[in-house]
């Protein structure tokens, strides 16, 4: 497969995985938690590296998932003992992220694990970072990681669809009928952590937030069904990856930056032009009500 095809494929897979997972964050009004997790997984990656002394993707996934979940647990603990939720998120994630940064500068200074890379990512190098496992041909690591995580995400959503739905819509009712609300919450946050770390290499910690939130936010404005929202969100994620790649080629700029920017542009388009919930439609409908009633 060509270099170009790999980049587009990997970008698209990150787009789908992030897009689908991010929908649930939006529906639960937890978008800021994506920001938090995307930063704290850095600590997970560093710890995984320090403990295993290798850059093996599996260890990093485990480390990131553990620290991602810890982030959520800490936020939950602080919040339930009286600290405001946004303040809890702000304190927990900056603290864990800071420990990650300190550990990198202390112990991991001479390996390829620098803060810039973790924050910004660089999808341009991803196709060359390959590995050969079992009977498979030599494949990019990022592709393998994203395939595994995408599969996990899809299986979880398939198995727990109704639980994810009811705990997002009405957690009190869900608890009252015996659905383990907290378990589902942590399951989802585990998904977010895995998704984040798998997309990390390609887009980095900051841009992964764009991929998690923007496609879902766009999809939310276009549909009244959760299932459709999930699918549309995936489509937006892929579209942003493809358009973003060619835009980057055209203007000779960072590919991951371009992909994230296209996510923002797509959202802006939907925000203004959505046929039902768009800004212009609402303005227009308001005018109709205002002047229509006088006739």
């Amino acid at each position, binding site marked *: 497969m060509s270099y170009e095809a790999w980049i587009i494929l990997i970008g698209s897979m990150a787009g789908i995985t992030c897009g689908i997972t991010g929908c649930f964050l939006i*529906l639960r*009004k937890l978008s800021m938690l994506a920001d938090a997790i995307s930063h704290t997984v850095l600590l997970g990656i560093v710890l995984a590296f320090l403990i295993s002394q290798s850059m093996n993707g599996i260890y990093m996934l485990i480390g990131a998932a553990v620290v991602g979940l810890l982030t959520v647990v800490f936020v939950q603990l602080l919040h339930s003992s*009286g600290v405001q939720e946004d303040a809890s998120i702000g304190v927990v994630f900056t603290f864990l992220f800071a420990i990650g940064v300190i550990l990198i500068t202390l112990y991991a200074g001479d390996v390829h694990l620098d803060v810039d890379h973790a924050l910004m990512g660089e999808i341009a190098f991803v196709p060359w970072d390959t590995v050969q496992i079992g009977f498979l041909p030599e494949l990019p690591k990022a592709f393998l990681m994203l395939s595994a995580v995408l599969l996990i995400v899809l299986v979880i959503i398939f*198995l727990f*669809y*109704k*639980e994810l*739905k*009811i705990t*997002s*819509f*009405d957690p*009190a*009712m*869900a*608890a*009252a*009928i*015996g*659905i383990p609300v907290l378990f589902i919450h942590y399951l989802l946050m585990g998904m977010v952590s895995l998704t984040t770390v798998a997309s990390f290499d390609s887009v980095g910690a900051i841009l992964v937030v764009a991929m998690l939130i923007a496609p879902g936010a766009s999809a*939310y404005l276009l*549909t*009244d*069904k*959760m299932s*459709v*929202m999930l699918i549309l969100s995936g489509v937006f994620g892929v579209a942003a990856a493809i358009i973003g790649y060619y835009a980057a080629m055209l203007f000779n700029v960072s590919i991951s930056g371009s992909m994230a920017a296209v996510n923002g542009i797509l959202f802006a388009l939907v925000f203004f032009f959505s046929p039902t919930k768009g800004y212009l439609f609402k303005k227009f409908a308001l005018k109709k009500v205002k002047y229509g009633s006088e006739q």
Partner: protein
Amino acid sequence: MMNPVVVKGLTVAYQEKPVLKDINFEVPEGKLIGIIGPNGAGKSTLIKAILGLIPKAAGQIQIYNKPYRAKDRVVGYVPQRGSVDWDFPTNALDVVLMGRYGHVGWFKRPGKKDEAFALECLRKVGMADFADRQISQLSGGQQQRVFLARALAQEAKVYFMDEPFVGVDAATERAIIDLLNELKEQGKTVLVVHHDLQTVKEYFDHVLLLNVEAIASGPTESTFTMENLHQTYGGKLAFLEKGQMIAEQK
């Protein structure tokens, strides 16, 4: 006869301040019970504590002689309408179907039968024509009816409803009352957190007067008295005068 709900010595506290203090009451089967008290009396808290949604500091709760377990599916719950996001991308039928989730079990989806049943529940509250309607496009009263339909779909024996009459139109209030009476005729027990003192005598067979402590509970006729109201609402004069008016009228 076995009382469906028995609460013994229930205490709930946030930090050190008790929100509910040593609550004891029982409700008889097949009755409509109003939970009455001023703002901050702990009415919603009582329901949530009974359902195990918030931790209790002390006390015992028995539903049909057993500690409450969600998986027994004997209890239906109607939260306050304002407690959920009505912009959620889903339609009325889907929300009612959520009432079936407890019956469906892990890893399964509600099937055709559940869907037909959910539609039947919507019909009972006069909302069958709105099954496909996005929930944000329903009026407050219609949203409340969807919540009631969802509770019906749970097929419970005891229902807890948190302020179902708040912010609904007269037609919906009538529809809800008809529905409550229908449930009663089927032998179900319904506990309703209620605000409007004027309708208490008309709507409920039993009342629980609550203000952090359980002031009184029993048949409306003998319990919803001026003296008990005075104790429940304390110094809140505006309420008291209103209560006096009502007590004299009836």
